[in-house]
């Protein structure tokens, strides 16, 4: 017999909940969003003994008081969607704090299975846990697991089935434990419970005792929901009366007293059920922390970690990036051309659409993939090892100057790789104000895609100091973000309340390959899915603009760029950039397409400066096997290059080739063009152009992410704010430089 049912996975952050989820569901996962929220909703399925079990992974929370979107989601799911069984994952070595959530789940009256995860770490610390006693006291099932090593999954599922069959056998369903909150509070709870029992509409929706407790805790969300039900207002009124009475007795907020009583109950249980070694020893994790969070040593260690991430994403991924690019524009474009040739469509507008529109669009998405994968590998290592939380700790003081706190540093850092995942990384911040401010500052971190522009322009205009110039661009982005952060902190985001930074630092752990892979895969594929449509659509739109002849010269898809709708638009826009020294239609075209993706700034320049590219010839098209061989060989070469570049992480270049490219025809065309548009101040104009590329509106994909994370209004602020700041800064560079007689 096939039985389908749903269970929910709850637990504190860092309790190993995602390891349990991955262990149970393997690759059968689905990632989406909770309705109307930006919080990720993960679910998965598994088959076990004729049962088809759906698992919903709730956001990691410390309690169910609903002060953050995550807590709200977790609680609403448990309260209203009523999963058949809740699996609560706990860190065995930190049971007291983890039991706080467990107790709240049990008070809600949902049948549960308690998982003592990471039991190996607890044993290593010499901690012994009396499972049976905990099971008895919580009236629940208790199992031990080591999810990282895939141990205990079957026990867990057996417990879930046992809990479920216990319910379906109609044994006096499920009697949740009662925590004794002390005489004074209990009197008020009984009084409120009696009122609730007399209101059928309310009794139907909420567990009675639980609701009474929540009202005494002044849970605003529950009050709001209760007001809509018949008899709700009276109950709230009565609860407020009880609260005033009790707070006069305790001289403290009632919710704090209630939390304290729960902890007292838990403390008593832990004293009886958890045995720890008498002698206190300092754990390895604490020893490492003495260094990594040290007032002085913490900073160099942090910088080294960031250097590692940066190098891994920037240098080590580069050969694969070239490989992806080569495959798309080599064999794949070739094959498509061969197919179109075979269909007799050679030279048609359709061919142009496919090769110049679609292939360019696909390329625009896929070239991100190697960079993102390496970035995510690096982040997964930092996160899974536990270092990420230390980085936030070390950076907290510095980020304070920007009105932010330590946790905002991570999105900023990720921004150097790619703005898109950086914006999604702002989700780790609880406070919406922090999220928005961080999201607005993230695009100023110069992403990987802007780098080729700096490199090309530095090589053209500053061949002797190109490294220095490129580095200053990064620095300028950071300084701009700092200045802007300070301004916003003191104006739009001004508040008396200092941003509150509380964060748990999980114990250090050696990351497992499996979990690194899970993280990397999940995030990379999520990006591809999200960015796919928008980038594709804009590249096709751009192709259309370039294909439509508006000057009466040429026909559809057979017109020079300068005669196309695209060229005409940019000729109209170009004067805006004249005070910045690059008021040519070629330069504004590059900036225009740079909005689609920063990667295409250079390729647009190649097109608009009419640098001849070798057209595809049918004779050159590789056969399928030749092409596959080429793909394989170049992948191998890219892998070798990657291995070679690994020593670069620590700054050692073992394989220096010292290639100095001669100025290409593109470089000289750009130089001539800038010379002309700036009336002889080409170097200043080039620098101003680089500054503009650094600061102006991020790409389409980033805008899509901003809309998703910040909402449409802030996205407009970001788009136009950045355009404005970019224009002013480039103006200052060009005009200021001229005044000072530079360049």
């Amino acid at each position, binding site marked *: 017999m096939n039985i389908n049912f749903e269970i929910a996975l709850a637990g504190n952050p860092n309790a190993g909940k995602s390891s349990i989820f991955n262990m149970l569901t393997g690759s059968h996962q689905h990632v989406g969003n909770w309705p109307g929220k930006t919080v990720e909703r993960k679910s998965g399925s598994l088959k076990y003994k004729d049962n088809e079990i759906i698992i919903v992974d709730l956001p990691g929370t410390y309690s169910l008081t609903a002060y953050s979107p995550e807590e709200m989601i977790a609680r609403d799911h448990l309260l209203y969607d009523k999963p058949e069984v809740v699996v609560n994952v706990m860190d065995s070595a930190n049971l007291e*704090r983890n039991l706080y959530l467990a107790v709240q789940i049990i008070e809600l009256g949902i049948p549960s299975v308690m998982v003592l995860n990471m039991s190996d770490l607890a044993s290593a610390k010499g901690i012994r846990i009396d499972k049976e006693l905990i099971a008895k006291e919580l009236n629940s099932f208790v199992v031990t697991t080591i999810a990282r090593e895939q141990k205990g999954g079957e026990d867990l599922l057996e417990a879930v089935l046992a809990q479920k069959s216990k319910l379906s056998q109609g044994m006096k369903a499920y009697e949740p434990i009662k925590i004794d909150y002390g005489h004074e509070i209990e009197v008020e709870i009984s009084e409120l419970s009696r009122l609730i029992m007399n209101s059928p509409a309310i009794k139907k929706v909420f567990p009675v005792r639980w609701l009474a407790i929540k009202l005494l805790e002044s849970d605003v969300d529950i009050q709001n929901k209760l007001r809509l039900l018949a008899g709700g207002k009276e109950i709230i009124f009565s609860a407020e009366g009880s609260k005033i009475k009790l707070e006069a007795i305790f001289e403290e907020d009632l919710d704090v007293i209630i939390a304290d009583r729960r902890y007292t109950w838990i403390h008593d249980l832990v004293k009886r059920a958890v045995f720890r070694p008498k002698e206190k020893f300092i754990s390895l994790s604490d020893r490492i922390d003495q260094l990594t969070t040290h007032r002085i040593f913490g900073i160099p260690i942090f910088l080294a970690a960031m250097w590692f991430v940066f190098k891994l994403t920037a240098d080590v991924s580069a050969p694969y990036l070239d490989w992806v690019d080569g495959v798309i524009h080599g064999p794949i474009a070739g094959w498509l051309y061969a197919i179109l040739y075979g269909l007799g469509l050679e030279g048609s507008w359709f061919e142009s659409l496919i090769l110049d529109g679609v292939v360019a669009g696909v390329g625009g998405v896929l070239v991100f993939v190697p960079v993102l994968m390496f970035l995510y590998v690096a982040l997964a290592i930092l996160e899974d090892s536990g270092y990420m939380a230390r980085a936030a700790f070390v950076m907290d003081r510095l980020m304070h100057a920007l009105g932010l706190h330590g946790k905002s540093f991570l999105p900023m850092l990720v921004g150097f790789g790619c703005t898109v995942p950086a914006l999604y990384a702002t989700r780790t911040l609880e406070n919406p104000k922090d999220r928005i401010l961080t999201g607005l500052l993230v695009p100023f971190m110069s992403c990987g895609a802007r780098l080729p522009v700096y490199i090309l322009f530095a090589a053209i205009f500053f061949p002797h100091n190109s490294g220095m110039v490129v580095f200053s661009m990064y620095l300028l982005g950071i300084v701009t973000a700092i200045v802007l952060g300070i301004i916003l902190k003191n104006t739009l985001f001004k508040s008396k309340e200092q941003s509150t930074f509380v964060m748990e630092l999980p114990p250090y752990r050696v990351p497992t390959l499996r979990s690194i892979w899970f993280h990397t895969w999940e995030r990379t594929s999520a990006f591809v899915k999200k960015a796919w449509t928008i980038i594709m659509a804009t590249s096709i739109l751009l192709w259309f603009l370039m294909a439509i002849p508006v000057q009466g010269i040429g026909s559809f898809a057979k017109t020079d760029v300068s005669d196309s709708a695209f060229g005409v638009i940019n000729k109209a826009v170009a004067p805006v950039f004249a005070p910045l020294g690059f008021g040519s239609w070629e330069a504004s075209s590059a900036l225009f397409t740079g909005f689609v993706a920063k990667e295409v700034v250079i390729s647009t320049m190649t097109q608009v400066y009419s640098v001849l590219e070798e057209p595809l010839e049918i004779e050159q098209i590789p056969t399928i096997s030749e092409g596959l061989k080429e793909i394989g060989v170049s992948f191998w070469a890219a892998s070798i290059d990657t291995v070679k570049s690994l020593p670069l992480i620590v700054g050692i270049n073992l394989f220096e080739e010292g290639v100095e490219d001669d100025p290409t025809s593109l470089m000289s065309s750009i130089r001539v063009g800038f010379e002309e548009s700036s009336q002889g101040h080409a170097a200043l104009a080039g620098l101003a152009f680089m500054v503009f590329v650094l600061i102006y509106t991020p790409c389409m994909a980033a805008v899509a992410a901003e809309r998703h994370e910040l909402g449409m209004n802030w996205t407009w602020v970001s788009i136009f704010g950045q355009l404005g700041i970019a224009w002013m800064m480039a103006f200052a560079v060009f005009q200021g430089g001229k005044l000072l007689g530079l360049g």
Partner: protein
Amino acid sequence: MSPQIMPLTFLPLGSKAKLSRISAGTGLKSRLAALGLTPGTEFTVLQHNGGTFLLSVRDSRLAIGSGMAYKIMVELLDN
């Protein structure tokens, strides 16, 4: 002699203390309570990094920012 109550900010490195009260809004108090910081809880100061504190509370390690540290009133315990 009554115990001396002071903000967390003034605790020296390595000291043990007991939380006496938090002078902040309800939301903040509940958050700290969920993390295990309830009145009467004892903890140790592990690090002290320019106003940001690292505490050892009930087997877990909590980072507390400077803004919050001065709202947490504590009682210094003898080591």
